[in-house]
């Protein structure tokens, strides 16, 4: 029997699996001093996996495998490219941090690549079983990564909080999925989508609600966000960058897949839930970020709020002619958010190597002794706030465009809430810039030039170029969004 394996379509996954095995074994054979080379294998593997993604994209078309459980289409390829680039940049910003701290290097890269493997599977999953397996493959390695500093109680606390929330959300999601299976008689999203509109059972509302709550925990939407600031603060900073960008995007891809390819024809069951999550995340996330003094906690609340902005297109997706516009909006927003947030974390890590502090006050006077770093940080902050000419404005633009295409009263109210919370957000992002440019260096602080490791500089450079280039020439990412939505 020929199971119909399409090795071209599976090539990115195969390359990453080979890389995981190579990195795992390389760690045994290298002398202690040569361990840094494992990171080179890891980064090389991630870049190599880009090649089949590009050739598949050039090839075009949709490849269906395993009875429809795995589908490689333009949407999957766009998101695979995003996850590979995001992981590549995370690896670059991890190298010096992990090397300095003398942490277990080989295992760190193996776990990060395993999580990446889960994300690549997630982009192609079109069946509840494969979505669940992919989601757990993303999550389980990150539980361990969050507790990477074994003897630090804060890191322990980050790990157990993240772990407990992770398993509880999986259990809720699974309970919801088991009810969906019972009501529709299938785990395939394509079959669920044909039956879901004709089911007139109140149980369907419970089933969809529980499934969505599971995902809401994963993407840290308010009121399921309380774990995020503690986990982000306690985990090693490169892991925090990874959680707030790649892992969060994994949750959003799962949500996008299950809403668009599964529950789309029963909008009454999911739209009100997502509306509430979006509104609460935007308002509470931004208000809580205002009073943070630690930059990592501030970025944690900022990422909760950005998650709220990302949920806005979902909440209006089935209204009017907004389906395609909101699908594109989610993808474009994710791509831009990834670049600007990873860039901000790269600057935070560079400075933390020197100041050993994550307080916003320690950024005082940065503009006078490290002008380039301050300039980049300001660019990322204003981009997150959505100020032109940085890429963030385009992300906000596509989000508001989906709201306008929907045009219903509920969508308009959500648009107003989004606009108000964007204004609130501007204050705390601008506060970091004010600290860097308008405050003088604190007494006793070291004001010699900041040491810039090459990997971190390169990571910051790539993020900075993307943020500026997309801000000036948004067609570049608009094209990707259009490609992902199927032309």
């Amino acid at each position, binding site marked *: 029997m020929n199971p119909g394996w399409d090795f071209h379509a599976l090539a990115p996954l195969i390359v990453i699996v080979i890389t995981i095995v190579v990195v795992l074994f390389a760690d045994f054979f290298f002398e202690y001093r040569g361990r840094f080379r494992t990171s080179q294998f890891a980064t090389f593997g991630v870049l190599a996996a880009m090649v089949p993604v590009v050739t598949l994209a050039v090839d075009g078309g949709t490849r269906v495998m395993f009875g429809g459980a795995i589908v490689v289409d333009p949407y999957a390829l766009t998101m695979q490219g995003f996850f590979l680039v995001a992981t590549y940049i995370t690896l670059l910003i991890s190298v010096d941090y992990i090397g300095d701290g003398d942490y277990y290097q080989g295992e760190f890269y193996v776990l990060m690549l395993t999580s990446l493997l889960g994300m690549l599977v997630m982009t192609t999953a079109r069946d509840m079983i494969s979505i669940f397996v992919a989601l757990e493959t993303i999550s*389980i390695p990150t539980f361990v990564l969050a507790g990477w500093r074994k003897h630090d109680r804060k890191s*322990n606390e980050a*790990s*157990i909080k993240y*772990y*407990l929330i992770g398993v509880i959300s*999986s259990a809720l999601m699974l309970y919801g999925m088991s009810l969906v*299976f*019972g009501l529709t008689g299938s785990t395939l999203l394509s079959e669920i989508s044909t039956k879901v509109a004709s089911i007139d059972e109140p149980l369907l509302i419970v089933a969809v609600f529980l499934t969505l709550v599971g995902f809401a925990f994963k993407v840290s939407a308010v009121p399921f966000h309380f774990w995020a*600031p503690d986990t982000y603060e306690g985990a090693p900073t490169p892991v925090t960058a990874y959680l707030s960008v790649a892992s969060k995007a994994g949750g959003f891809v799962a949500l996008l897949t299950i809403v668009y390819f599964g529950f789309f024809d029963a909008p009454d069951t999911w739209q009100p839930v997502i509306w509430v999550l979006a509104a609460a995340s935007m308002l509470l996330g931004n208000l809580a970020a205002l009073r943070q003094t630690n930059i990592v906690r501030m970025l944690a609340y900022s990422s909760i709020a950005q998650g709220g902005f990302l949920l806005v297109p979902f909440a209006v997706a089935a209204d009017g002619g907004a389906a395609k516009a909101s699908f594109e909006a989610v993808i474009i927003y994710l791509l831009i958010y990834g670049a600007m947030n990873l860039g901000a974390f790269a600057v935070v890590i560079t400075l933390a190597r020197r100041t050993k502090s994550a307080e916003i006050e320690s950024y005082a006077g940065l503009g006078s002794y490290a002008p380039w770093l301050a300039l980049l940080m300001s660019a990322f902050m204003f981009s997150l706030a959505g100020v032109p000419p940085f890429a963030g404005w385009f992300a906000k633009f596509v989000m508001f465009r989906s709201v306008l295409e929907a045009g219903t009263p509920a969508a308009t109210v959500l648009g107003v809430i989004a606009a108000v919370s964007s204004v609130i957000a501007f204050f705390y992002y601008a506060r970091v810039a004010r600290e860097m440019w308008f405050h003088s260096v604190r007494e006793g602080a070291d004001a010699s030039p900041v040491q810039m490791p090459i990997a971190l500089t390169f990571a910051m450079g790539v993020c900075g170029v993307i943020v500026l280039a997309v801000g000036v020439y948004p067609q570049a990412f608009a094209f990707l969004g259009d490609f992902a939505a199927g032309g």
Partner: protein
Amino acid sequence: MILAQFLVLAAVLFCIGVYGVLARRNGVLVLMSVELMLNAVNINLIAFSAYLRETSGQVFALFVITIAAAEVGVGLAIVLLIYRNISSPDLDQLDQMSG
């Protein structure tokens, strides 16, 4: 077959699990409560699968069992790590961060 009894059993088991996760302070007991929640899902899946004569639910249950084992393995490792650092399985003692 009578589907409702299995669903009620699963719902009760799931609620006991949720209660355990929220009320227990001992890390090991929290993990056991999580297991109850996941096994409630398995009962649901297998009951529906038998009722609908559709095997994919049983396949789903097999995946849930496998992954639950991996999850609990990682969870026990984390609880053990915390026990080494603070000499107690009491999760409420981990409260260094808030706000």
